[in-house]
């Protein structure tokens, strides 16, 4: 069995185990969840370490037929595209389990759902079969709704649950229709992504432009809704604002990346001509994320809503990277996916801690927290700096790469300039303002008794995420060396069809696949 099966299998197995543990064995429940996510994280680090960069094809592969008549198989494997994502997901999963000490009622159900979410999304990132890819994501998505509905906070909790359920279900179902349509129209009778890609490389098998133009928007907007693409983003800030911290960490950090991963893994190589047609649209929607949502973030009075909006804004850079449709841009997009996973998890974990100790996240009521909470305050400061793209953190590397990639595409010059402005100015304004109001200034009287993260154990999740941000910020080569060789064939497939627009040219030149 592949190590990937264990990485996603341990949390799922632990979830099953917890069903049979009585609800009042709190220590055991928490212990099981921590051990399972820790093993999963350790295995993921091990997998990342043993991953050989630059090798063609997938590593740690495993394929077990599931439904023969439809060509569905349990197929997992990693290449440069998902190796970082799985590592990030496993680390965030463990950190989220650590942060779950804040949950005080119905712990058993909470941990079961948390483990389902972790295992499901890790499995989705590992799977190379479209059916399982969707199946496992859905398995991880539904617990999100329940967790927000039950353990969420704030008066607008019910509305937030309703909205996030509606948006994300519609998004997921649209993507499902897109995937089914893709399967049906390709006519290869397989859900296996590598097999489909291989099949599509034969110019006789590639989809007609009409079919592509029908399927691509389904995938773009279906996945886009899941990633909070502007203007379908409004579920995100409110949903994250109302979610319990561990849920927000996992969803904003890991689960949300599923949509972008799906676009890069499936839509770009299989629907290249349609993708080229949509490049401009994606770029302008991405600007909606960066600038519009950035301005919205500026006006927020609640720290969680601000962080939620900024997380939506960051998605814009990823879409811009995809729109650039070249090696540098897409590599940058993958880098941001990993970096933003750590960052979002870190900020939501910190805001969760602040909410837990102070009982509020209204920025106007907070202030001077750095004095009472030196560790948490410093971590928040670092997270905010990473969020505005300070060099040294992984986000800077990703964003800079995306800008280089986008600039090299002449059609995207305006968009790139606007995006850089949005990243440097708007991001910096709301982040630094939030820092000034929350961490500095006079400390309100009522917060004199606040306690910082007391021991090493409590500090661990924050430290873990910060270290990861630093590590990949200072040594991005760890990721880029792995990502680049595997993005290359995707970019080749996505752009080679430029020749395909003129069928004559395509027939006279052999496919550039090898």
């Amino acid at each position, binding site marked *: 069995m592949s190590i990937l099966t264990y990485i996603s299998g341990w949390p799922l197995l632990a979830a099953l185990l917890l*069903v049979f543990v009585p609800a009042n064995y709190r220590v055991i429940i928490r212990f099981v969840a921590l051990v399972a996510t820790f093993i999963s994280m350790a295995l993921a680090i091990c997998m990342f370490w043993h991953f050989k960069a630059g090798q063609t094809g997938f590593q740690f592969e495993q394929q077990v037929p*599931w*439904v*023969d*008549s*439809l060509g569905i198989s349990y197929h997992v494997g990693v290449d440069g595209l998902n190796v970082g994502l799985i590592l990030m997901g496993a680390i965030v999963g463990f950190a989220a389990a650590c942060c779950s000490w804040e949950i005080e009622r119905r712990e058993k*159900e909470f941990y079961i759902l948390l483990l389902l979410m972790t295992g499901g999304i890790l499995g989705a990132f590992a799977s190379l079969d479209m*059916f399982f890819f969707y*199946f*496992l994501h*859905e*398995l991880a998505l*539904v617990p999100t*709704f329940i967790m927000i*509905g*039950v353990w969420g906070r704030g008066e607008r909790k019910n509305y937030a649950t309703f909205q996030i*359920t*509606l948006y994300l*279900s*519609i998004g997921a*179902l*649209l993507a*499902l*229709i897109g995937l*089914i*349509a893709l*399967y*049906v*129209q390709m006519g290869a009778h397989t859900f296996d992504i590598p097999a489909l890609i291989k099949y599509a490389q034969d110019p006789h098998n590639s989809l007609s432009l009409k*079919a592509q133009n029908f399927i691509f928007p389904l995938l773009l907007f279906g996945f886009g809704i899941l990633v909070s693409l502007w203007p379908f983003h409004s579920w995100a800030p409110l949903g994250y604002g109302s979610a319990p911290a561990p849920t927000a960490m996992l969803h904003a950090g890991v689960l949300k990346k599923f949509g972008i991963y799906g676009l890069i893994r499936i839509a770009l190589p299989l629907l290249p001509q349609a993708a080229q047609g949509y490049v401009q649209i994606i770029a302008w929607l991405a600007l909606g994320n960066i600038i519009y949502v950035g301005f919205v973030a500026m006006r927020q009075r609640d720290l969680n809503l601000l962080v939620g909006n900024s997380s939506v804004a960051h998605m814009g850079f990823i879409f811009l990277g995809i729109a650039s449709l070249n090696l540098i841009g897409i590599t940058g997009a993958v880098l941001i996916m990993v970096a933003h996973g750590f960052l979002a998890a870190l900020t939501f974990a910190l805001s969760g801690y602040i909410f837990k100790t102070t009982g509020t996240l209204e920025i106007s009521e907070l202030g001077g927290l750095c004095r009472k909470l030196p560790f948490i305050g410093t971590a928040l400061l670092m997270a905010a700096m990473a969020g505005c793209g300070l060099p040294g953190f992984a986000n800077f590397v990703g964003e800079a790469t995306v800008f280089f990639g986008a600039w090299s595409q002449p059609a995207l010059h305006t968009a790139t300039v606007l995006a850089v402005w949005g990243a440097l100015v708007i991001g910096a304004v709301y982040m630094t303002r939030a820092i000034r109001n929350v961490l500095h200034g006079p400390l309100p009287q009522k917060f004199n008794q606040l306690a910082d993260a007391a021991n090493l154990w409590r500090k661990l999740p924050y430290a873990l995420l910060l270290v990861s941000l630093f590590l990949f910020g200072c040594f991005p080569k760890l990721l880029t060396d792995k990502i680049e060789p595997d993005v290359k064939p995707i970019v080749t497939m996505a752009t080679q069809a430029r020749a395909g627009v003129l069928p004559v040219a395509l027939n006279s030149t052999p496919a550039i696949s090898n």
Partner: protein
Amino acid sequence: MNASLMSLEISVLALGLLLMLADLFMPVERRPFLGFAAIAALTALLIASFSGYGSCSISGTAFNGMFVNDALSLFFKRFFIIAAILVLFVAVQFADRIAVGIGEYYSLIVFALAGMLFAASANNFAMLFVAIELITVTFYVLVSFQRGRIASLEAGVKYLILGALSSSFMVYGIALIWGTTGKLNFNELAAVANQYTGEKIFLLGVLLVVVGLGFKIAAFPFQIWAPDVYQGAPTPTTAFLAIGSKAAGFVLLLRVLFVALPVVAAHWVNLLIVMSAITILYGNLCAIPQRNLKRLMGYSSIAHAGYLLLGVAAIAGNVHDATAGGAAILYYLAGYLFTVIASFTVITLVVRKSDTEDISVLAGLYQRSPLLAATMTVAMVSLAGIPPLAGFFGKFLLLKSVVALGAVNQGYYCLVFTALAGVVISLYYYFGVVRAIYFSKDVTDLSPIAVSGSAKICIWLSLAGILWLGIFPNTVLNLAAEAAKVLSS
């Protein structure tokens, strides 16, 4: 003539008669055991159907082609026997609420089963009508079996009137078809149907038959009876109506449309698309405000009839290859069977003490009986179509069969998006039930609910079915695909 083909039906009828006789000679306090006797006998028949002995292993036709044994009928016969076994389990739980005649109740369930078995094999309009009437007439009695309850009687009367009306439509339709073509046998009809596609009287006849069957499956616009009858009928009857009667309607609809009249079916693609879309929307939208659990299930069953019609519409789009659509319908029904039994078992057990069937009786179920709470949750989540449960894979297959035809007829894409809307709407009310179980604010009654051994068997069987169909779809899907080949013309 080959009467041995019918040995299964004959055994089931004999079992029904035997139960009635035994009821006469058995002391009152032992009568509930009749239920277990019926379950044991049906289990033996089910095992026989898999073992290669008995009529199920022989395929062929009997009575001049009126009765046919093929892969499709075999699939449905097994389906109906499993459904009857599980419904009998529910009925055993319900026995204390039926004042007199519990033995008759069991035997009526077995008679209805016999009707469904005949329906699975019907290959002739006369046979179809006899099978339908055998089912419907037994259901008239089953629905109004709680003679002391006004609601049950009211449901019985409604079902009787509307059922009789739909039967008369159907018999009229059959008469018109026979009058124009002179054929009743499905295969013979298929051979000549081509010449009659222009004839209005013939088409009217077919339409009236579809109306009669639409009543059985509770498809729009023949769904009016469903919520009232579901609400008033005794819970085991409701469960059997939701699966047995609906599945019988579907097997007959499939045979009439795709074995007998594929030419007409191909002609009526748009009609089927519209019918499916409206049924889905109607069922889901009307389910939103419901507070009565059984009524909610009634509307949800309408919605599910709509999803199943997706498959019918898909076959109609390509009558030469029914494998994808047919297999999807059969698979979906199999998943629906276990889900419905699971939820109605829980309703039976929870509603035992209190008279009301309001959703609020589920409040605190989580503390009263974790097993029942988990079962109801799994059933609702499966009905909503969320992985890794049976409902998801079934919906996936249905959507796939419809999307496959989108390139041919744009109407299919509209249908897919309607189905999507339906699924999203349904999340609201299914999760409403789950919310009532786990997160009700004011819980008054926290007394634990006793779950008897037989109820546990039933619950574990349904849970196993839901999970098995969701996680290991291969076996059943292959059987379903094999069965669906019969429908390709």
